[in-house]
């Protein structure tokens, strides 16, 4: 499972970085969202991978999953959702004002 999780994280992050380095605001927003997913998953995994164990005290539990990263991820998701919404709106507004969806607000010279 470690290998699967780690390679999935790496793949998503790589896609996110690639998209973020593109010139159009829409790809950049997608890239930021992908990086956000990868980061949230990374936080979750940092509480160690555990299958079928409760995060809270329970009678006769063999072990516990760390509940704190789960709480942190909730916070990070909410913040990421809010900022993604803002950056989308900002990108749309910039496209309206400048007539270009390039991140620099103008078409690059051909």
């Amino acid at each position, binding site marked *: 499972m470690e290998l699967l999780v780690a390679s999935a994280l790496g793949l998503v992050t790589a896609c996110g970085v690639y998209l973020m380095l593109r010139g159009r*605001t829409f790809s950049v927003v997608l890239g930021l969202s992908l990086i*956000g997913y990868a980061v949230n998953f990374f936080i979750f995994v940092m509480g160690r991978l555990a299958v079928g164990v409760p995060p809270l005290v329970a009678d006769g539990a063999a072990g516990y999953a760390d509940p704190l990263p789960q709480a942190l991820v909730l916070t990070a998701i909410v913040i990421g959702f809010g900022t993604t919404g803002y950056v989308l709106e900002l990108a749309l507004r910039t496209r309206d004002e400048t007539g270009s969806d390039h*991140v620099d607000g103008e078409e690059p010279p051909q």
Partner: protein
Amino acid sequence: MTAHAIVLPVLVPALAACLMLFAGERRRGMQRALGLAACLALAVLAAALVVRSASGAVTAYFLGDWAAPFGIALVLDRLAALMLALTALVAAVALAAATTGRDPLDARGRYFHPLFQFQLMGLNGAFLTGDLFNLFVFFEVLLIASYCLLAHGQGAARLKAAVHFVVINLAASGLFLIGVALLYAVTGTLNMADLALRVPAAAPADAALVRAGALLLLVVFAVKAAAFPLYLWLPGAYSAAAAPVAALFAIMTKVGVYSVVRVHGVIFGPGAGEFALVAMPWLAAAAIATTVAGAVGALGAASLTRMTAYLTIASVGTLLIAVSLASPAGLGAALYYLVHSTLAVAALFLLAAEIGTRRGAAGDRLQSGAAIPRPVGLGIALVVAAASIVGLPPFPGFVGKLMILGASWGLAATPWLWAVILGTGLLALLALARAGSVLFWQPGETGAAPGAATRSALAAPWALLACGIALAAFAAPVKRFADDAARQIADTPSYATRVLGDAPGSTARPLRPGGPR
């Protein structure tokens, strides 16, 4: 009541912002009154907290009374109190500048006042929190407000700058979370005091992870502080922002510096065993490059606002040089210089905007344009601000740079540091002298009708400059406070005791309660 005073700098702006939203955008007078009242309350609170922290006590406040390290702790020490006071001062002046004049900034768009208060809430929270994840949350609070404030008033240039600013800060936020998660994975805690105890005890197999976490956090703080090579977002953003917003943003780069001091001074400080001062070699190199890049940029800037933005970068570099010395003397000098540079840069942003208004069509671009009406008062203010930033006696910049030079004496790198600090001072002097002579002494024929001069527009920058002059006049008590703050930072064990209480030795706790490792 006094026990709860520590949380008030976060609650007061939050409450004020919510009340403003209820008051509605139409009642701007009420919003202004609320905003100024909140700033005044913050100033009084900050003064009270400075007095309280001056006794030398580190006071911890546990939100919801959950004991550290399980709950979130706010921690008041001298450094936090100093930053709170500086924030309150700059915020009050910036708000006054934003609400006065013929075309006040707060009337040019909606929700300026609530956003301003949320920005203050984020700033104050970042300075007070003793928890690494909570620091991230307050960073986001202040950043979300700053994204909107930067774009406030709109216009294509401002929106373009906002896109760059938002994207780079979101990328940095992702790195911040990765760094925090790495440290949590190894230590099982997020409380800074607890981290300071557990990081040195990390297993050798985890050493690489801790190191990676520490350096990732350094990268994040370098983005916020605009350190080389991550400073490229700043000139565009700060020169596009409205002047009062740019003046408030003068403190935002200092949040990055503060975080370096707090995280790399307390958690990875001299007492962190294998990880002691892990970031400092990188920081020192970046600081020198930042100072040079800022000064060279100032020399090549095409407008006074852009030049001020580059001078902000140079001042951050000088500050980081002092921080990277990692000695109480260096840190004390850095804190004094931090106060001075924030005030001076904020004043220069406001002055640049006023010069731009008075010159009409030519704006603050460094080319000949209409003669400035009633130039004497404005010119004197510009000279005082410029001399202060460059570091000419008797202004506080001189005192601050002298302290940094003194603190860096006797090291192997001393000649380099002195050459950089003095050389960049000379470059900044050349840049500002050129700007002043072009703007004031080369009126061209081309100018359209110059903008009218309002006397009150100079009140805000003069207020900041007066604080700067007071900083030079009362350098001794301020420096004593800064030195005490630096010594307090270096004294990690007593900080940890104050925050974690007399609970059985934190390291005795299992790394992750109950869970398989």
